[in-house]
């Protein structure tokens, strides 16, 4: 009975020792417990075996040689870093990136403003835009046309709707359009874009009525002469 009690007590001690054996190996244990465990290892072969085995595990696996890498690992890593480093910038360098994050839109705005400014400065700006003005894209650019003072239209020579015939000037259709003139819808009808008629009836009516208004205006001008 006494022997059984001793064995049981010894088993309890062993289990306590096993619980702290890892801390014992690491030296992460208070001196009192360390000393008690040290004594136990001297007398208990089982625990001495456990301690020795665990220490061996720590020693073997802690060896640098256990950190093996696959063949060619270094070369592949170096290559990937070369590639990645060329592409990525450290986050500090992202200061530049975040800086550029607002720099780019600002530059874009400046560019747009500059373009608008230039466009407005160039001579081909459409100074005169009739509401019903039709693009003269189909008018042959070399066609000789007539413009006159007080009118925003250019005409085919001899058109009866030319304003102030005393101020007539001839030029090419291209020059006229660059100067902001638009083709007369009567004499140059054949060259005009027929998109209006392709659109809704309302647009056609509106265009026709404006045409008529302009016609009257031109006729009044002619009559005035």
């Amino acid at each position, binding site marked *: 009975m006494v022997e059984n009690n001793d064995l049981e007590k010894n088993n309890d001690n062993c289990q306590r020792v096993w*619980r702290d054996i*890892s801390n014992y190996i690491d030296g992460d244990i208070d001196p009192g417990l360390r000393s008690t465990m040290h004594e136990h290892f001297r007398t208990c*072969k089982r625990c001495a075996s456990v301690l020795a085995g665990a220490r*061996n595990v720590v020693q*073997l*696996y802690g060896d640098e*040689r256990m950190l093996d890498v696959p063949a060619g690992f*270094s070369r592949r890593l170096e290559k990937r870093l070369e590639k990645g480093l060329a592409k*990525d910038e450290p986050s*500090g360098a992202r200061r530049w990136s975040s800086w550029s994050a607002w720099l780019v839109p600002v530059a874009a705005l400046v560019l747009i403003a500059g373009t608008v400014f230039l466009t407005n400065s160039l001579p081909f700006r459409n100074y005169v835009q009739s509401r019903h003005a039709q693009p003269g894209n189909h008018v042959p650019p070399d066609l000789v046309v007539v413009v006159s003072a007080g009118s925003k239209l250019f005409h085919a020579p001899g058109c009866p709707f030319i304003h102030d015939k005393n101020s007539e000037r001839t030029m090419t259709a291209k020059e006229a359009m660059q100067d902001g003139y638009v083709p007369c819808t009567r004499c140059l009808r054949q060259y005009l874009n027929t998109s209006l008629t392709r659109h809704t009836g309302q647009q056609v009516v509106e265009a026709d009525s404006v045409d008529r208004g302009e016609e009257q205006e031109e006729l009044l001008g002619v009559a005035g002469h």
Partner: protein
Amino acid sequence: MSEPHAALNNPAAAGGSREQDLISSVQRGQHELFYELVRPYERRVYAAALAILRNEHDAEDAAQEAMLKAFANIRQFRAEARFSTWLIQITVNEALMRRRRERTVVMEGIDDRRDGEEGGYAPRDFADWREIPSEALERKEVRQRLAEALARLDQKYRQVFVLRDMEHLNIQETAEALGITVASVKTRLLRARLMLRDLLAAGWEQGWFSRLPFEKGTKPW
């Protein structure tokens, strides 16, 4: 190989100042020095990734990615931390993130599903122990056997063991890298060490180390 390179193959010997110089240079924009800075740790980075991912290809990819992330964040590194620890932590994060993403089903090896983590682990083998000389590690076969035993550990034990006993992070650093408590690190480390001990003892009986110069009939432990 130039002398600084040779010194850097052994980070401990290289000394902090050379490493600190390299870090400062990279932080200032000498990006070409980054590989020189991390090369001494490439094996440790790979081992940390492998401990979590258990697949060589994935581990290599994660290790490379971790290095790139370290580079991307190099300016955030502060000298009060160890560079190696910082690098390993980035690697662990990268590997854990990949594992979560891929939802890998981890095969259970020798684990504690029978006994909860809080319960003690009872060693199974009490044979007389004899120290395995470190020269044994020169043999690829021995390293392979040790790696196989490690691979049989349950993930949570293997991670802690690799970071603590192979990467040599301290308990606190291991806990931080894995996002677990210090107490959990200690418990898992104890169990990992004892389980490995049992696994290797069984391996000895099967003749793993039979060509080692041990006395006939004597187990290494």
